[in-house]
């Protein structure tokens, strides 16, 4: 199994997390640094026509889009490691629902904030505006997580996992994001819980 990408990329990290949660060790990380333009090389574009990372090669399966790859990993290794997709069709539907929420609502908002904090000098007004939009999304998470321990229910799943690499960048790496925990104790507790998972600590060692 070959995973093309770089550990510091939020999308590659998402896949690495799923491999670690599933206790899959037998894979090779092939570095493709898109910031250095390596995604645009013809031999890579043949595999991933958008020139993005990550890409997974597993036997005769060549797969891209991190949220598709993590679903594949969850399904392929269903019998081992952490259960990542719940236990039945309704659990899976809830996981898919919150994966969509992450991919559509959370991801757009957090990327706007990350775009501001990662390129100093920081435009404080723009930071306040982007954090405000993310805050509105997290208000809904706060309500949800006051009823369930994790997003899809009372079980850790791909839905929680999918938030961790972007969440880490905004909440822990760039501390400006941690202001969003104020007044959102359930989001804070959820974040502290999931970010203390061994698989996540293993990923952080690579970054």
């Amino acid at each position, binding site marked *: 199994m070959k995973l093309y990408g770089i550990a510091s990329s939020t999308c590659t990290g998402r896949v690495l997390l799923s491999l670690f949660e599933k206790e899959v060790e037998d894979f090779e990380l092939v570095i493709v640094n898109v910031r250095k333009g390596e995604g645009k090389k013809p031999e890579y574009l043949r595999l991933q026509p958008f020139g993005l990372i990550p890409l997974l090669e597993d036997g005769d399966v060549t797969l891209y889009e991190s949220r598709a790859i993590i679903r594949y990993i969850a399904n392929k290794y269903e019998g081992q490691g952490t259960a990542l997709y719940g236990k039945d069709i309704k659990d899976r539907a809830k996981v898919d*629902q919150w994966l969509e929420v992450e991919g*559509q609502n959370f991801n757009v908002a957090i990327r706007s904030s990350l775009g501001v904090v990662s390129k100093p000098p920081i435009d404080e007004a723009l930071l306040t505006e982007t954090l405000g939009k993310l805050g509105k999304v997290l208000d*809904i998470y706060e309500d949800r997580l006051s009823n369930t321990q994790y997003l899809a229910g009372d079980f850790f799943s791909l839905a929680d996992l999918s938030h961790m690499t972007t969440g880490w960048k905004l909440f822990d790496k760039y501390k400006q994001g941690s202001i969003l925990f104020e007044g959102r104790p359930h989001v804070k507790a959820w974040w502290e819980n999931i970010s203390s998972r061994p698989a996540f600590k293993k990923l952080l060692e690579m970054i």
Partner: protein
Amino acid sequence: MERYCLDCRKLAVDFSVARFTPLCQGSNPCSNTRENMKLYGAGTANVHRALLVLFEKEVWDVELVHVNLLAGEHMKPWYQAMQPFHQIPLLEDCDFRLYESRAIIRYIAEKYEGQGAPLLGKTLKERALVNQWVEVEGQNFFAPYEAISLESFKAFYFKRPLDKQLITSNFEKLEKVFNVYEAQLSRNKYLAGDHYSIADLVHTPSLHRLKRVEVDAFAKWKHVTAWYEDIRSRPAFQKVLEWDSKWPFVKAE
């Protein structure tokens, strides 16, 4: 589970006065053998694709509940209690509620795997490729498509000219996506391979909408055009368009 009266939209404390689907009344909602599926929404592409998967799976017993966006019904407490992001569609399968159209599509495709058109692929590999192309739609196609669709609607509704710059710049983003689709569809009949799947299904209503904004939106891509003609002419999609007339939603022309 909280129930709201469909007539007065108030939280129902007395089930007998609230107009629910008769089959789901009472303390044991699914004791009946007949199921009832409710789809909350309006005539938008995302709602159409949820209806499309139901029809592909030959689930005809669907009640459409109109959430009047123009009247702000999606922002009302009775709707937000079910869909906290105040978006449409929302699916109610007896006592199970689900939102996000792509999640609804996956759920229905799996629940009714044994009937109607096969939509998910058979092997682990096929299913992974189907998921990949659904993600491609969600992460690459959807945002520029949505920007164009929304601008087209706003210009119509507020009776103002189209923001041509916005339309052009988003069509430029779609160029890159259509180039990838063209290459893929020159090698395969459908996005994920030889068989129609939810990866194609998620696109049908959006492409239909796109053509209404710009009739030649993807005319220059031969394989994309042929693929669209194929998926658009499926009986299930024709039925979606027929049902669309049941909702008095103002269409952006």
